[in-house]
């Protein structure tokens, strides 16, 4: 049985002279948490808006549950829940009024389900508070359960955790896991790579193009270059010296340490220690092989894209 729930083929979208999406193809299976990663302006929001039927693409095809989404958009709407990046419920209506309004729009009034959603989101106590008076995190949770009010099978979430404190972020992800357990397929964009780790698969979009798409651990393994982590002082001089080395592809300062992506066979932790010792006054504490992080994979892919394109 085909478990593909979303199939995007050769999708393109142009805004005047700006090409937002170019020849984008991918498929999402039922039950996935599919992460879409990319820098600002990569086209993530445009992609989600097209999937939500808010924008129309200029090129390509879109299938949802095996049906042409563009042709049967209105019939597909009840199957999709969409949470835009900016708060999009009515600030001057209360939590209850907002949820009732949207459930009526979907013709899906189910008080028991609404109570459960409120319970999941821990918003029961704020039923009669106007949405504008909720904290940022609570607004996001309200928007999320608002998108779930009609029990969609596919959730499209555009940066649901941007601008939210760490506690609310975790609560939002707990909510997502809850919905995922109930069989909802989730497409989520995020600028946070730790959130990408929680996805079943991740797509990296850059300038409207797909750079990579795979499970997070497979993506990490795909870097193809070893990584060395160095703890040394003074960190900026050490960083500058390591950047000079021909074997170093990338060197990024991360807190108290430096992460190096190096050319295979060109540089070992011992070589790094040698480089650091050659700097007058520098002290090395540690240099060791490390597992690649998603960030390094993406930085590397984007750099290669920039060189190629």
């Amino acid at each position, binding site marked *: 049985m085909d478990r593909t729930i979303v199939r995007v083929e050769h999708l393109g979208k142009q805004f005047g002279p700006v090409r937002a999406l170019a020849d984008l193809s991918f498929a999402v299976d039922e039950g996935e948490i599919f992460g879409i990663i990319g820098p600002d302006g990569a086209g993530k929001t445009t992609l989600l*808006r097209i999937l*939500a*039927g*808010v*924008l*129309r693409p200029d090129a390509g095809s879109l299938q949802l549950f095996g049906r042409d989404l563009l042709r049967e958009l*209105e019939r597909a*709407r*009840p199957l*999709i829940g*969409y949470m*835009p990046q*900016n*708060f*999009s*419920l*009515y*600030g*001057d*209506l209360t939590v209850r*009024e907002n949820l*009732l*309004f*949207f459930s*009526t*729009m*979907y*013709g899906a009034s189910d008080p028991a389900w609404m109570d459960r959603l409120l319970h999941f989101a821990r918003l029961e106590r704020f039923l009669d508070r106007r949405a504008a008076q909720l904290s940022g995190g609570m607004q996001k949770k309200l928007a999320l359960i*608002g998108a779930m009010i009609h029990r969609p099978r596919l959730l499209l979430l555009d940066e649901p955790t941007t601008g939210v404190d760490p506690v609310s972020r975790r609560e939002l992800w707990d909510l997502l896991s809850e919905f995922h357990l109930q069989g909802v397929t989730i497409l989520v964009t995020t600028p946070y790579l730790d959130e990408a780790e929680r996805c079943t698969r991740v797509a990296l979009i850059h300038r409207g193009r797909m750079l990579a798409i795979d499970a997070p651990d497979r993506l990490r393994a795909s870097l193809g270059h070893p990584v060395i982590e160095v703890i040394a002082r003074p960190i900026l001089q050490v960083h500058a010296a390591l950047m000079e080395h021909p074997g170093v592809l990338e060197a990024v300062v991360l807190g108290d340490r430096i992460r190096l992506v190096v050319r295979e066979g060109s540089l070992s932790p011992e070589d790094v220690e040698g480089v650091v010792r050659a700097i007058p006054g520098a002290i090395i504490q540690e240099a060791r092989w490390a597992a690649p992080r998603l960030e390094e994979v993406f930085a590397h892919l984007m750099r290669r894209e920039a060189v190629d394109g």
Partner: protein
Amino acid sequence: MFRRIGAVIYKEVLHILRDPRTLAVMFLIPVVQLFLLGYAATTDVKYVPMVILDWDRTPQSQELVDAYRAVDTFRIIGYVERQEDLTRLLDAGRAQVALLIPKGYGADILAGRPATIGLVIDGSDPTVANNAYAAALSIAQNHSTRILRRILNLDPRRMPGLDPRPRVWYNPELRSANYMIPGLIGAILQFLTMLLTAQAIVREREQGTMEQLIVTPIRPVELVIGKVIPYVLIAFIDFGLILTLGALWFRVPIRGHLGLLLALSGLFLLSSLGFGLLISTVASTQREAMLLTYFLLLPSIFLAGFLFPIQAMPQVLQWVSYLIPLRYMLVILRGIIVKGVGIEPLWDEALALTVFGIVVMGLAARRFRKRLE
């Protein structure tokens, strides 16, 4: 379908009730406009300040001054002795009309000779000047006839010559409130429905809520109907408010059939709601919607014959005025309220409004899409 429309109406009413500024716009503006136009924008010319320069000082000159004192067009503010004082008063605007009676006026009258008098009128305000001019002249002519009759010793009932008997229909006292207030109803209905409809939809786009609304299965027509109905209701509440205040406070007579007036107003609202929707498809912010509304509204106020008569406009502008729905509505309002006419003389206007309503609404419906772009 009806549940969704009902929910949109309910939500819209909540927005309105929770926004004091919108409420103020909806109910304060009509009332303020009504009182402004009822009192200030009156074209009735009354109590024009008049100064007298009487070099004659005879019972005859006094009689002439009394003739001017007897009408309420003029208010005699006093006498001056010298011409410079008269000029000063006119310059300062404290007097707008001056009556000059030369020395020898009384003697000329008594001798049965032609007697000259001078009238100076401040023409800087043409409305006042025209009325004052006509009134001053007709008072002088009446007085002249009286002098003639006395000299010829004629029985007033057997006076030769014309005996005109003008009769003013519909508005015998020529009160401008009877003209302005019915017109105001049309202007307010148009302004409110256009502006509020446009803003109600643009606000959803501006605040990002439209994005959430679009992804629901609501149909554009349901959204439009639900959004528009509250403002139609408000328009009719304002309609009743202005009509009631106009009748009770400004004593505007309501002679025609109210049901007919309501029905034709509904027809008129089609086109102004349509314009509001069209604006909402073009404007992306509430400020833009506001500016566009004014841009469309101002010419329609000036060209539809709300303040200035269409007959007096250059031919080109008269043609343009045919494109303004308010023009037809004003004829209907004044016809039904002031003249008390039925539908027969208003068929053309009703037809024009129907055509406009269908065309504008059709255009708006074609442009209105459930999409963000």
